[in-house]
């Protein structure tokens, strides 16, 4: 999708005597759009290096690689958070990426460098 709003979405909703016209009344200033599609995670290592590593390789969170942690436990921690560990929504780490990162962390070796990429 390049630009929005040129085809008018007209959906008139009548609620309690209030008429709400919902229409795409954007001005024509279409931005010169850069990247075509949104962001998608490549693999577990990418999620780890671009998110987890900033804390778990920086002494903010405990070491989690090389401990053979149960992927189910990792999943639980990521979705629910715990005390100082924030929770991550499926909107940012989708189910597939979560499965991959849990597996990546669970199977990883402690001495492999997977620090934050710059």
């Amino acid at each position, binding site marked *: 999708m390049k630009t929005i709003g040129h085809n008018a979405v007209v959906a008139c909703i009548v609620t309690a005597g209030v008429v*709400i016209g919902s*229409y795409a009344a954007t001005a024509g*200033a279409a931005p010169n759009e850069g990247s075509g599609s949104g962001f998608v995670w490549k693999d577990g290592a990418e999620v780890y290096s671009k998110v987890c590593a900033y804390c778990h390789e920086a002494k903010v969170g405990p070491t989690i690689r090389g401990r053979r942690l149960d992927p189910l436990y990792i999943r639980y921690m990521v979705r629910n958070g715990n005390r100082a560990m924030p929770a991550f929504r499926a*909107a940012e780490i989708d189910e597939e990426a979560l499965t991959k990162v849990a597996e990546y962390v669970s199977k990883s070796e402690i001495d492999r460098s997977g620090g934050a990429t710059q």
Partner: protein
Amino acid sequence: MAGKFIALPKGVSEESFAAAVAEFRRVLGQDAVLVTAEQLAPYIKTMMPVPDADHTPSAALLATTVEQIQQIVGICNQYKVPIWTISTGRNFGYGSAAPAERGQVVLDLKRMNRILEVDPDLCFALVEPGVTYKQLYDYIQDHRYPLWLSCPAPSAIAGPTGNTLDRGVGYTPYGEHFLFACGMEVVLATGEVLRTGMGSLPNSNTWQVFKWGYGPYLDGIFTQSNYGIVTKFGFWLMPAPPAFKPFVIQYENEDDIVEIVETIRPLRISGVIPNAVVIAHALYEAPTKAKRSDYMTGPGAIADEAVRQIMKDHKLGAWNVYAALYGTQEQIDVNWKIVTTAFSRSGKAKILTEQEAGDDPAFQYRAALMRGDMTLKEFSLYNWRGGGGSMWFAPVSQARGSETLKQMAMTKRILGKYGLDYAGEFIVGMRDMHHIVDVLYDRTDPAVVKAAYQCFDELLTEFSAEGYGTYRVNTAFMDKVAHTYGPVQRQVHKTLKKALDPNGILAPGKSGIR
């Protein structure tokens, strides 16, 4: 609670809500409408001293297009369902990704995350709300654009849209983020789409280069507000300077804040020091290198002697002033001379550069923030007391030494009364200082949670009694802070709300506005 949903919006029946959910699913698809406890768990974890139940959402909607959002507001108007919009949803210490009120539906725009434009000549970006700083950082690196970001401390996982809409701050010369915002696209409660400033003009190419447009400037009313849903956000980027010199200046005593602020203000207002300077207390920096339990056990606030010992063991000042110079080497050399002369006058300051402090973990992350690099090191704060409790107490101060000392002393006294430590810093200002205090407490201990709540309440009461207002607050205290700004402002906010969102579907309660 029995029933199909883990929470319901205020005044909406289960049947009616189920009908709204069915409509949301028609627009977004089954998988993009979350309603189960398991799916909503990440929206429920907050750091506030109130029960999670108070801020439990009824659903979360993962929208990706403007058209979807227009349809969602149509459904919300029809069923009187309130939505709480988040962009990257990392508002830690201010309410995280949870809604202001129980039962609100979270409109989560994290997946609406295209980088629409980065212009390396005019140095601006136009992004969708779900773009993180990290994503933009990588994009800039991949394209080898000589541009720098300005990020808040949770850089890697937060994003420019949400941060700026809440009027957040960073640490580069562009650190007061809303000053550098330029053009928004906003879905209104009617479903109409507004482009602010020059964006309203068909075929304009100046949307991201001229902020004001024509007529009353509107962007401000969409920050810290609930008047619209921002779907595109433009802002300026800093050209990468040829040289960068971060430094820290340490002072031994808490009273030295007076000298620090008096010395720094003229340098800051005149632009000799161009960036959002930080004057960080020892206890703000200590968590990056020390463990509290090595110095203090048992309840109560940490003793001053223990803080002195930490300073000694970990090479910290009572105050640590982080700032940087940017420009060509010649410019930096000239300004460095001005800075060192000013700070050397009293003989109290210890001035350290990358040469002396480059290996220090606190210096490293501060230097990273001052050049807009990714780091989450500041989350070390959460290990200080442990237990995941945090609220930002954020009063605004004049950039005047006597005022900052007074605010520090008041804050420390009130925190101490409740057994909490003063982990504070003063940031950003030219003429102002955002006094930022992380009220850290153990959220797993009910007695401590209660004390933290009372403490925060007292901080707000006492500060407003002295004429000090807070610039931003967590969702449990928004009404209280709105009240401190008086009835006239509140009424104007309400009048605008009624005009723009008569059914009150957008984020009721945000900044105390309903």
